[in-house]
C-alpha cells in the first residue's frame, strides 16, 4: 500500500439528493491531486468523508492506509484539513488563531514553524490583527498555516482559492508547489478550471460523479471532436451565427475567442476551420479568424458535463 488516499465505489446521499455517486480514485504518496468541479458537485461531501466527518452510505475510503470509518482517531491527528470558507475565529488575532489550532493538535507554533514559515511569514507582520480584518488572500494564508502547524502527513484543502483574487490564487498555488516538493501529499478542490494545470493529476467532478481522471495536460487529448477557436469582432453575434452552422455541436465563449466544436468526429479540423470561416463571412462577419486547437480542461469539462445528466437540486 503506497496510496495516500484510496476511494472505492463511494456513495453518499442526503435525503433524495445524491451528493456522491459511486466514486473511485486513488492518490499516490507525495502527489498533488486536484478535484475540479463547480459548487454542488460533491467535493465538500467527499472531503468530509475523507476527514472522517461523514460516514459513506456504501463503498470504502482510506486515508494514509487508515479506514475513514474504523480508524477515526488515528486519521484525525495526521491530517491537515482546511474546510471551505476558511474556518477561522474572526474575533481572534492572526497569532491567536494559529496558537489555538497548534494547541488543539497537541503542538506549538514553534515546533511547526519551519514548515509554515514560507506562508506564515507573509502574514506575520499582521500577527495582532483580528482575522475578520484580513483580506481574502491573507485569510487563506492563515487558514493554510493553521492546517499545517501540526505537520500533518496529508493536506486536504476544500476550495482554498474561492473568493480570492487571481494574484493571491497564483501565490497560493506556488506555496502548494513548495509543500509538494517537501514530500507532502495534497488533495485540493477548486471550481477554477485553470488551476487544474498546477496539479499532478485532476479528477473532473460534476453532479456527484467523476467525469475523468488524468494528468491535466493529457485531459484534452481525449476530446474526440474537432475543436476550433474563432476570433472576431461582434462576439455575441458571431456566437449565434456559429450555433446556426448545421454541424455545430457546441459553441461557447472562451476568453477573447469562441470555441466551436463540430459534430463530425472524423472531419479534418483544418477543413472545418475553413468551412466555418466561409460560413460566417457569408453572413456578414468580417475579419474572422478560425483555427483548430487542442482542447483544454475547461473544454473537456464542458463536453463531459454536457453529456452527463444535469443535477436537479443542489447537494449540501
Amino acid at each position, binding site marked *: 500500500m503506497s496510496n495516500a488516499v484510496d476511494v472505492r465505489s463511494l456513495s453518499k446521499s442526503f435525503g433524495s439528493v445524491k451528493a456522491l455517486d459511486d466514486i473511485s480514485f486513488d492518490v499516490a504518496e507525495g502527489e498533488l491531486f486536484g478535484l475540479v468541479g463547480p459548487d454542488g458537485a460533491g467535493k465538500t461531501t467527499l472531503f468530509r468523508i475523507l476527514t472522517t466527518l461523514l460516514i459513506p452510505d456504501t463503498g470504502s475510503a482510506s486515508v494514509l492506509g487508515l479506514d475513514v470509518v474504523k480508524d477515526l*482517531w488515528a486519521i484525525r491527528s495526521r491530517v491537515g484539513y482546511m474546510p471551505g470558507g476558511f474556518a477561522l*475565529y474572526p*474575533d481572534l488575532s492572526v497569532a491567536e488563531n494559529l496558537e489555538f489550532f497548534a494547541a*488543539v493538535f497537541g503542538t506549538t507554533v514553534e515546533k511547526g514553524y519551519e514548515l509554515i514559515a514560507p506562508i506564515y511569514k507573509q502574514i506575520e507582520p499582521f500577527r495582532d490583527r483580528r482575522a475578520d480584518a484580513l483580506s481574502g488572500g491573507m485569510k487563506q494564508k492563515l487558514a493554510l498555516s493553521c492546517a499545517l502547524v501540526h505537520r500533518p502527513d496529508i493536506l486536504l484543502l476544500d476550495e482554498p482559492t474561492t473568493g480570492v483574487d487571481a494574484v493571491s490564487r497564483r501565490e497560493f498555488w506556488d506555496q502548494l508547489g513548495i509543500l509538494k516538493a517537501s514530500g507532502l501529499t495534497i488533495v485540493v478542490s477548486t471550481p477554477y478550471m485553470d488551476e487544474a494545470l498546477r496539479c499532478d493529476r485532476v479528477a473532473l467532478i460534476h453532479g456527484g460523479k467523476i467525469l475523468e481522471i488524468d494528468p491535466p495536460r493529457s485531459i484534452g487529448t481525449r476530446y474526440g471532436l474537432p475543436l476550433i477557436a474563432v476570433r472576431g469582432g461582434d462576439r455575441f453575434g458571431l456566437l449565434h451565427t456559429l450555433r446556426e452552422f448545421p454541424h455545430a455541436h457546441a459553441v461557447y465563449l472562451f476568453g477573447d475567442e469562441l470555441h466551436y466544436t463540430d459534430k463530425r468526429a472524423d472531419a479534418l479540423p483544418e477543413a472545418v476551420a475553413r468551412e466555418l470561416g466561409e460560413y460566417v463571412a457569408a453572413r456578414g462577419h468580417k475579419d474572422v479568424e478560425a483555427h483548430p486547437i487542442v482542447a483544454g480542461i475547461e473544454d473537456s469539462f464542458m463536453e463531459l458535463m454536457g453529456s452527463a445528466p444535469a443535477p436537479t437540486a443542489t447537494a449540501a
Partner: protein
Amino acid sequence: MNLNALRAFVVKEFHHILRDRQTLTILLMMPLVQVILFGYALRSDVRDIRLAVIDPTPDNATIELQSRFLSTNRFRLETISKTPDVIEPLFRRGRADVALVFDPGFASHLRGVDPARILIAVDASDPNTGTTYLNYTRAVIARYQAELNAQNRQVQIVTETRMRFNPTLESVNLFVPGLIALVLVLVSALMTAISLSREKERGTMEVLLVSPLRPQHIIVGKVIPYLGLGFANVLTALLAAWVVFHVPFRGSVVLLLVESVIYTIVSLALGVLVAARTSSQRAAMLTAMLATMLPNALLSGMIFPIASMPAWLRPVTYIVPARWFIVIARGIMLKGVGLTILWRETLILSVMAMLLLAAAMRSFKPRLE
C-alpha cells in the same frame, strides 16, 4: 487530556466572551438590572388603601395622625373603633387592608418619657402589596414623627408590625434566590448553546472535530469559561440584592457558590444538549429559551408558588432544576441552614448534573451527522 489543548481552548473562549463587548455588558449587567427591576416591580404602587383605626382613647395626637393618613390620598378610612375585636372580621372579609391600633393614652405618651406605641396590622396575603401597604403606613408615621421632632419635641413613636396571613414574607428576599437561578440558566444554557452552534455555522467545528480533541474535551473547554461567568453573575446578584434591598445573607457564601456550580453544570449540560439538536444559532437560542428559561422561571416556585399549582402540574416541577436550587438558595440565604437540612435537594441536583452531563457528552457526536 492534553492540558495545553484544554488551556488553549479556555483562553480562546474567554477571548470570544471578552471581545464581544455588547454581549458581555448585557451578561454582566443582567443580574444587576433584573434584581433592581424585579425588586422595584414587586413594590407596585397602590392607592385606595382601606384603613381601620382602633383608637381606645381619642386625643388630639391620634386625630392629627389619622388626618395625616387621609390627606395622602392613598388611604381611605374604612372604620373607626374603640376596641380591637373588629379587626379580625374586617380582615377576614377582606374589608380592610391596614389596621392602625393606637395605645391608650397616645398623646400623653408622646409628651412623656415612655414611647408612644402603634401596632400596624397588614393584610399580607399578597406579599407584594402587603409590603407596599406597610411601607406607606410607616412613611406617614415617620413623617409625622419627624415634624414633631423638628418642633424640638423629642418624641418617640414605636411601631410594631403584624403581617396577617403571611407573617414572614419579604418578597424581595424570596425573589433574589429565584433570580440567581434564572440568570445562571440564562447565561449558562443560552450562551453555551449559542457559542457551540456558532462554531458549527462558522465551520470551525469541522476543524475541531478533525483534530485529536475528543467531544468531551470540546465540551469541557466550552463549559469552563461560562462557569466563571456564572460565578461572576451570582456575586453580582447577591451584591445588588444586599446593597439595594438589604436582603440578608444568613448562611455560608461558600456553600451557596458550590451549589451554584452544581446548578450551573446542569444548565450548561442543557445548553450542550440544545446545541447538539439544533442547526442554527437562531434555533439554538429559541430552543434554549423555551427549554430552560421558561420552566425554570414559571415552574420553579420562583414566581408562582408550587403549592398553588394544579395537582397534575406539581410532579412536573420535580424535573425543573431551578425548583431545587431555589429551595437551596432560600435556605442558605434567608434561613442560614446548611447541608444537614439541604442534603436532599443537593443530592437531586448533583444526580441531575451527572445525568445531563452524560447525556450531553453522548449527544455530541464526533462526526457531522
